[in-house]
């Protein structure tokens, strides 16, 4: 099997790939420092904390003493990660001994955090202005619906009714790599695309965000600014309203796109408008997937390859359609059969048998 996994797990890899000057610029914001620190492996976090009030460089060999000798690889991984993200900076003295010291901006921001505690990027709007805010469950439902709608559109752009604000070119960017279009044919889902559909919501979100950011330059937007805004967004309180007036122009354009993805909900008041971060947004900087928000569903596959899926989601139906023949659809039940033809069809699209059995 070709190794073309859709690598979407880690946002920080992308941050680490930024040039040093851009990265240092990012560390001007305390939120980014916080998000970066939280994304580190546990051991690296601990090192960062330990070095927080140490201003002089520490010799690398002295640091190696911190861990038990059996776990030197863990130590290397942690240090490499810290260097990669420029949390630690390598210093060489005259005798060519390597020592590390902490990035000063990072250190300063973190020290401030410890004294003041974390603050919010911006004040929520008073409830007197925002008449009625959606409840958390409503918000979550909204986010999921928006996201599902987006996914549907992604895999099957012709079928969707109700236009979206995403321009066609933008949609293309997202679809790049996920769909392959041969000349004169409708675009088909590639192996990557199929894997993408099977990922958890958070991982999918990352993938899309990464494409979104990497395509930023083409649209004339500075990716650094976008990254910092996205990270900032994840520190907003879930379900609170924030005024759009506090945003810069770039951020305002971005927030419309994010609303389309279900990361925020935009609301229009009498005078001003505001956005409400949803769970998708607040989970953004947490690289762990604690939002197992995928809808419950059951799939029963009989030995005669008939398949019953209890799901109301059109997305599930679309996924199943990729490798099976859908026979009929009831409001909460999809009945189909896995046939020779449907499987061959799937194989032709580069979907492997393993992936199919994984999906079921």
């Amino acid at each position, binding site marked *: 099997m070709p190794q073309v996994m859709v690598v979407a797990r880690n946002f920080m890899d992308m941050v680490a790939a930024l040039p040093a000057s851009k990265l240092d610029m990012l560390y001007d914001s305390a939120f980014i420092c*916080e998000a970066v*620190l*939280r994304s580190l492996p*546990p*051991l690296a*976090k*601990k090192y960062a*904390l*330990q070095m*927080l*009030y140490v201003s002089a460089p520490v010799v690398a060999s002295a640091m190696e*003493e*911190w*861990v*038990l000798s059996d*776990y030197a690889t*863990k*130590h290397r991984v942690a240090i490499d990660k810290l260097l990669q993200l420029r949390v630690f900076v390598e210093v060489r003295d005259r005798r060519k001994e390597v020592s590390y010291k902490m990035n000063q901006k990072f250190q300063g921001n*973190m020290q401030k*955090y*410890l*004294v*003041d*505690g*974390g*603050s*919010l990027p911006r004040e929520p709007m008073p409830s007197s202005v925002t008449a009625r805010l959606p409840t958390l469950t409503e918000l979550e439902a909204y986010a999921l619906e928006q996201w599902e709608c987006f996914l549907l559109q992604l895999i099957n752009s012709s079928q969707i009714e109700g236009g979206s604000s995403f321009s066609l070119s933008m949609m293309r960017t997202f679809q790049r790599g996920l769909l392959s279009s041969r000349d004169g044919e409708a675009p088909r889902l590639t192996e990557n695309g199929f894997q993408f559909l099977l990922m958890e919501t958070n991982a999918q979100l990352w993938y899309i965000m990464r494409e979104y950011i990497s395509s930023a330059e083409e649209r004339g937007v500075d990716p650094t600014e976008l990254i910092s805004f996205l990270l900032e967004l994840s520190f907003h*309180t879930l379900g*609170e309203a924030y005024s759009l007036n506090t945003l810069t122009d770039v951020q305002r354009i971005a927030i419309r796109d994010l609303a389309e993805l279900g990361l925020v909900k935009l609301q229009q008041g009498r005078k001003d408008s505001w956005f409400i971060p949803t769970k998708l947004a607040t989970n953004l900087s*947490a690289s*762990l*997937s*604690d939002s*197992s928000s995928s809808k419950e569903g059951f799939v029963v596959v009989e030995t005669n390859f008939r398949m019953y899926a209890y799901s109301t989601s059109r997305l599930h139906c679309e996924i199943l359609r990729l490798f099976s023949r859908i026979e009929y659809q009831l409001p909460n039940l999809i009945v189909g059969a896995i046939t020779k033809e449907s499987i061959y069809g799937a194989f032709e699209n580069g979907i492997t048998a393993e992936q199919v059995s994984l999906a079921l």
Partner: protein
Amino acid sequence: MTSKVYSDDVSLAVVVVDTNPFFWASAALPFADFFAHLIHYVNSLLLLNHLNHVVVIATGVSSCTYIFDSSDASASGSADVAATFAKASRKIEEFIAQDARCTASNGSVADSNSASLLSGALSLALCYIQRVFRSGTRHPQPRILCLQGSPDGPEQYVAVMNSIFSAQRSMVPIDSCIVGAQDSAFLQQASYITSGVYLKPQELSGLFQYLAAVFATDLHSRTFLRLPKTLGVDFRASCFCHKKTIDMGYVCSVCLSIFCKYHKKCSTCGSEFNRVMPDLNSMPDQRQ
């Protein structure tokens, strides 16, 4: 299906803080400074992972109470951390005042050697941890950190040991950081039995560095790290009859209660010792 939804280093840290006024009146480190170090520490734990959960318990001479809970702070929506900590410090002041009244009304002799209610605080901490365990499907890794200054109270021996054993059973390590002048035999045993870290910092003005370097380490990373080892553990027990710490004594052969002198009948289980005991030196039943 219990999938692993938490990453390795999510911790639930319960910090037990000694607020014994008799100790702090004569301590090398002023309480205000100590409290600042503590807040730094709590903040740094919260910084490390947004799922980390920190609870602070204050122990006075005759009572103890919860003074800070990070889940309250975030749930109430007021993410204004400065205000939360102002509230915590107000709470601690109230607690100290109330504890002083409590002690006065108890009429117990409160001299400069009086101990803090460690047993109560440990029980509170363990209860909290059990509650978290039972409330949801997702378990952060729990641990307890005791910041103790005042000397041990031998009269709490049985209660403290029981807490230690229940911590051991529920696999909760008890870390101890001694901010006072003398080592604590209770906490040495606690950390030894529950495989926590026992540390008596040399330089108290740098308390935060000790806290950050040693006690902020999550349980997962502890397996890799070289952490301070306890040199010697004071295993001495207290007798059940006079609550004195003893090196040598009599142990009931039925229930293992410890007495400093010979009794005809065990006060704990009621067994009668009808054999005539020779003097202590010829028949010593020594605890480890």
